[in-house]
């Protein structure tokens, strides 16, 4: 389960032959000054940051049960991740509007929509997927949502560990009360979408993490039952519900554009739903990066 979510460096090494071939081809192409990727609308390609590899750890996403009790998920250590190219800013309302104008994306929820150089908000996971597909078509590059593990890797010190450290309690209400108090205390950022860059950069130059926009990830909701030795006894995924990252990690149905509290849902809802994408390097780029050449 954990390895499926981690973006482990070993995966990149699995195709050395292919990469070498690609490298040779490219050297030829570059000498001939031939454009390697279709860049008809290169101006659409958003500003990105390449987060360099480093050892890091993330709290495994999903609900975990042990001895019939809800517990914090395990901390997953990743010793050798690959680098990650991720958008510096969240997708902007203006960028998203171009996709809508071309009828490739659906309109954002008006109550949660800004305009101009603010993040695109009021968008669902499905909307984000539409946008990634459209951007990939337009740029000839591969764009997709990050996993929780990738988001935490890029967020660095801005990532919020969802662990509550309440193991051992017999009181099933305690986790709910603790999570409620914590999410309530996290409030206070501007609720309406504000100009990109308002929440500053993290140590890698990634902007607006954990601001007033929660970001869709590609990670499915899941429940994992752990055995006595913390081994996985069962793991069930529900992919109609996705993990969101931001000031706190939370779950949302993939078609929801506007998270609202009320009724039986007692948590503090995300202020706004938006997203940023990662760019998947071509095999050649991956190899060049791995070799430290790019």
């Amino acid at each position, binding site marked *: 389960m954990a390895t499926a979510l981690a973006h482990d460096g070993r995966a990149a090494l699995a195709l050395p032959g292919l990469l070498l071939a690609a490298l040779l081809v490219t050297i030829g192409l570059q000498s001939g000054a031939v454009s390697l990727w279709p860049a008809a609308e290169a101006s659409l390609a958003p500003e990105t940051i390449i987060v360099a590899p480093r050892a890091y750890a993330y709290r495994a996403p999903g609900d975990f049960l042990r001895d019939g009790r809800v517990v914090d998920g395990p901390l997953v250590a990743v010793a050798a991740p690959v680098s990650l190219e991720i958008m510096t800013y969240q997708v902007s309302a203006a960028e998203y509007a171009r996709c809508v104008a071309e009828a490739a994306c659906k309109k954002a929820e008006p109550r949660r929509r800004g305009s101009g150089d603010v993040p695109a908000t009021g968008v669902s996971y499905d909307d984000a997927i539409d946008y990634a597909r459209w951007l990939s078509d337009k740029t000839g590059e591969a764009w997709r949502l990050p996993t929780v593990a990738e988001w935490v890797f890029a967020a660095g010190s801005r990532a919020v560990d969802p662990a509550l450290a309440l193991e051992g309690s017999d009181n099933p209400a305690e986790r709910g009360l603790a999570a409620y108090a914590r999410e309530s205390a996290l409030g206070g950022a501007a*609720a309406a979408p504000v100009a990109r860059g308002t929440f500053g950069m993290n140590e890698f130059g990634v902007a607006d993490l954990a601001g007033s926009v929660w970001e869709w990830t590609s990670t499915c909701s899941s429940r994992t039952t752990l055995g006595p030795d913390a081994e996985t006894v069962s793991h069930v995924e529900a992919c109609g519900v996705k993990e969101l990252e931001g000031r706190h990690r939370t779950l949302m149905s993939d078609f929801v554009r506007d998270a609202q509290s009320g009724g039986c849902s007692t948590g503090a809802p995300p202020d706004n739903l938006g997203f940023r994408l990662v760019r998947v390097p071509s095999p050649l780029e991956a190899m060049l990066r791995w070799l430290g050449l790019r």
Partner: protein
Amino acid sequence: MIRNDDLELSRRTLLGAAAFAGVFGTLMAVVPAAAEDAGVTTGPVPDLADLPRVQVELVKPPFVHAHEQVATGGPKVVQFTMVIEEKQLVIDDYGTTVPAMTFNGSVPGPLMVVHQNDYVELTLINPDTNELQHNIDFHAATGALGGGGLTLINPGEQVKLRFKATRTGVFVYHCAPGGPMIPWHVVSGMNGAIMVLPRDGLKDGVGKPLAYDRVYYVGEQDFYIPKDADGNYKTYESAGEGYDDMLQVMRTLTPTHEVFNGAVGALTGENAMQANVGETVLIVHSQANRDTRPHLIGGHGDFVWATGKFANAPQVDLETWHIPGGCAGAAIYTFLQPGIYAYVNHNLIEAVELGATAHFMVGGEWNDDLMTQVMPPTPIDA
């Protein structure tokens, strides 16, 4: 300067004109006689100089000023002061604003608490920074349109009203300055409640006293905010400026917001109400304009006066109770289990989409006998 004053005056005149031209034009003429009649028919006014007088500092809802549940001594004159504030209030987390009218600065106005046969003496102040005429109609009071006929004041005026709290219960008060001004002032936030306790406290219907450890006041408010052509909520510099637009939305009878204590989320998160297992909580709930149906998710109404009048035996063990518009209700519940409870208007569209949700955070020990998760979520084939 002069020009500004002229403009303000003309707006004031415009809005005031509706009030005077309506019901109130005639009412104002008959009020002095009616008030005297009311005084005579209820018997001689006792020499209030002999009665003890207490001055109460009102507090902002959901909190309630300190009070005795069982009265010590005889009737008193209980003095309150409320300042009317016209001001912008943010009513949801999209930043939607309403040019609100408030008793004492909050929606709802503060809960006043007295005992039966006490005299409520209210000083109502309409500062000259306001634009509109206001008054107060107490559903707990007898005569002169609940006091509305004796309390209509212009900006820059104050008035003092005394009424005898003859009937027990929780009762709505609201502004009612005549004609179309009435619903407009009420749905702009100008309402609250008063609780008249029996002198010997609350009873369960078969004579057993009921005491509460905490009391919270939930005032439910329907708002009708106009939208522009793009579907965005409009903002107005003053209540008067928004009057025409808001009236159109009001006539649809479909609120854009249905909230507790003036805003979506006013009683959730860090503002959630608090209690502990074993504590008994009295929830006073008013809706001055529209029906509501409170429900405590995960709990019950142990003793409920849905229409709020304590001389009637409370209903017991309720799941949901109905409070008609223009009424306050009261419910007593002793928390038995820790956790987060949602207190909602159980039209769940109004609770979730329009905002009528509050939370209780309840600490204490879990009772496995009342509830246990026998099997945690487990794959079906396991």
